């Protein structure tokens, strides 16, 4: 399946937004930049969830809403479903995506990696490279948080990328 123009546009917009907030607006304060990017994602997720739930029946409980995020919402955004969903039955859900589309085009400038990093091991990243990649993940985290909040589940979403290009999302409903 060929790559569609809109997908490249989204990649471009997200990368530029991250670069603008991290490089120009809040150059020395990555936490503020991260907060702003996450807030943008929140609003977009909020609106998208309203749009994607239009045709289908409403949700009767939290698990249904999470499953919707894993299947329909993820397919609309990333053209695939979540690969693995785990829960600790006490409110935390872990969504695992083994091939997160928005990170597949991330290239790391070797000059920026820290000098102690060992030779190219796809699992290990230098410190600054990890930070750059994690910045890109704040927007999707905001997207998920916005969608879940609109569906009635206030939560905190964090991303973990120990094995690129796999990605894990942790949701903690705040009850």
């Amino acid at each position: 399946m060929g790559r569609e123009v809109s997908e490249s546009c989204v990649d471009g917009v997200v990368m530029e937004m991250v670069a603008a907030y991290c490089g120009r607006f809040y150059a020395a304060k990555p936490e503020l930049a991260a907060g702003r990017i996450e807030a943008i994602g929140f609003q977009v997720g909020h609106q998208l969830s309203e749009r994607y739930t239009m045709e289908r029946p409403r949700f009767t409980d939290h698990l249904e809403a999470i499953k919707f995020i894993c299947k329909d919402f993820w397919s609309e955004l990333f053209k695939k479903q979540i690969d693995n969903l785990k829960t600790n039955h006490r409110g935390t859900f872990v969504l695992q995506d083994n091939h997160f589309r928005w990170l597949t085009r991330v290239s790391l400038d070797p000059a920026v990696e820290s000098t102690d990093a060992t030779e190219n091991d796809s699992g290990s990243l230098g410190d600054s490279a990890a930070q750059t990649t994690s910045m890109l993940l704040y927007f999707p985290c905001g997207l998920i948080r916005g969608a879940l909040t609109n569906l009635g589940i206030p939560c905190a979403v964090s991303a973990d990328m120990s094995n690129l290009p796999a990605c894990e999302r942790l949701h903690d409903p705040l009850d």
Partner: protein
Amino acid sequence: MSDMASTACFVIVSKNDIPIYDAEVGSAPKKEDQAYQHQFILHAALDVVQDLAWATSAMFLKSVDRFNDLVVSVYVTAGHTRFMLLHDSRSEDGIKSFFQEVHELYIKIFLNPLYLPGSRITSSHFNTKVRALARKYL
């Protein structure tokens, strides 16, 4: 279509229970005090809607409450926004289609990045279209 003058009051209530849009869409001549009474009836029906909304996964809840000869019909979205219509027993299919088309208009407003979710809908375009839909389906 019936030639009788119809009474109808349409209100959109956000998930924080704040009305974000209201309109008298019936074809009967409008009377000031009646408009207030209609809004009061709709707000009073919100409790009933709350109970019913969690009991089913359908969006269209049909008629949830009656007052004299007026009936309250409700349509709930996934984001828990309620479209409420006070009317005098029109055809259910027409009302369902009305709600579905208003839902589409509502999503267009919602997708507007300059629209703050939960705030009043002030677009005159939206107002015109809702009234046109009401004339068509009710």
